[in-house]
């Protein structure tokens, strides 16, 4: 930063990445809301006043930035408990993957209703359809093209006031595997990114006379 307020943004020569007009303007406006009034503890910065000049070779000059007096207030954040969330993910393969995923979600929601579960909010998402884009995705055009996704993952999340209620619905899901729409599948081994142990399995036979048959049942629920 020079005394006149100009600065050259750059990076160590051998470091990766890029410093250009594009990368600097992206960072300049990142999460600032009104770019003419970016509130800092010591200045209200006006990013619409400055000039960026790309000097090439990962150097961008910043000049003519202006600012106003510091705000009267600081920003604070307060967090308060807002309930508990539960969720399920279930995948279906082609054909009719989206229809099957939606049917599975309807089933789970109907179980919540039937068992009187106090759900305060639902969130349905269909990966492979429009889980992220929502209404911005032109599904009518996709349908008209005849395109059918090869697989769809349904994600259903719900909010309840207490953790017991949030956990209860997860136990209604198991029946989908045997009695729900066909083509159900898993969504992978991942559990919080932790490693999972793998087991090899080998079938074998054993002479009947060597086995003393008995049955013991034990049930444990997490």
């Amino acid at each position, binding site marked *: 930063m020079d005394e006149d307020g100009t600065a050259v943004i750059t990076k160590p020569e051998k470091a990766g990445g890029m410093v250009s*007009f*594009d990368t600097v*303007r*992206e960072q*300049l*406006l*990142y*999460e*600032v*809301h*009104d*770019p*003419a009034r970016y509130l800092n503890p010591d200045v209200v910065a006006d*990013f*619409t*006043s*400055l*000039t*960026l000049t790309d000097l090439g070779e990962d150097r961008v000059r910043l000049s003519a930035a202006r600012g106003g007096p510091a705000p009267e207030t600081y920003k604070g954040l307060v*967090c308060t408990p*807002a309930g508990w*969330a539960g*969720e399920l993910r279930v995948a279906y393969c082609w054909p009719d993957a989206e229809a099957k995923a939606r049917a599975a979600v309807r089933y789970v929601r109907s179980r919540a209703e039937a068992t009187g579960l106090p759900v305060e*909010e*639902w*969130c349905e*998402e269909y990966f492979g359809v429009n*889980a*992220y*884009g*929502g*209404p*911005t*995705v*032109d599904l009518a055009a996709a349908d008209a093209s005849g395109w059918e996704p090869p697989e769809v993952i349904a*994600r259903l*999340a*719900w*909010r309840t006031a207490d953790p017991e209620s949030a956990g209860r619905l997860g136990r209604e899901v198991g029946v989908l595997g045997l009695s729900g729409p066909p083509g159900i599948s898993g969504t992978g081994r991942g559990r919080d990114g932790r490693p999972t142990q793998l087991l090899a399995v080998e079938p074998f036979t054993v002479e009947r006379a060597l086995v003393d048959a008995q049955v013991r049942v034990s049930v444990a629920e997490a």
Partner: protein
Amino acid sequence: MARIQLRDLCGVRCGDKGDISDISLFADDLAAYEAVLSEVTPERVKAHFGALVAGPVERYEAGNVLALKFVLHQALGGGAPRSLRSDNLGKTHGASLLRLWIEVPEEVASGARRRHAPVSR
């Protein structure tokens, strides 16, 4: 005039603050900036996002860097630590904005230079 998807004309960067989704839209030259300035209004962005954004949409201009800033209120299902959405930070909202189709002068459309990434399988 020509019809073009924002994806082919602009870059984007987005982030979150509380329940606000904050999207910057970047044009590559003055003609493209003027085209998006007249086409990508806050009303259009609000309608485009539909039920994803419950609150109002504000637009700010940063013509010095050929950018428009969109501030989408009540846009994240209550904010990152409260939201039930898988994209609780709105990190995909920029891409969703790029889905918008707009009308631009022919020379703006033919000058568009945002690339589609080739897929290698």
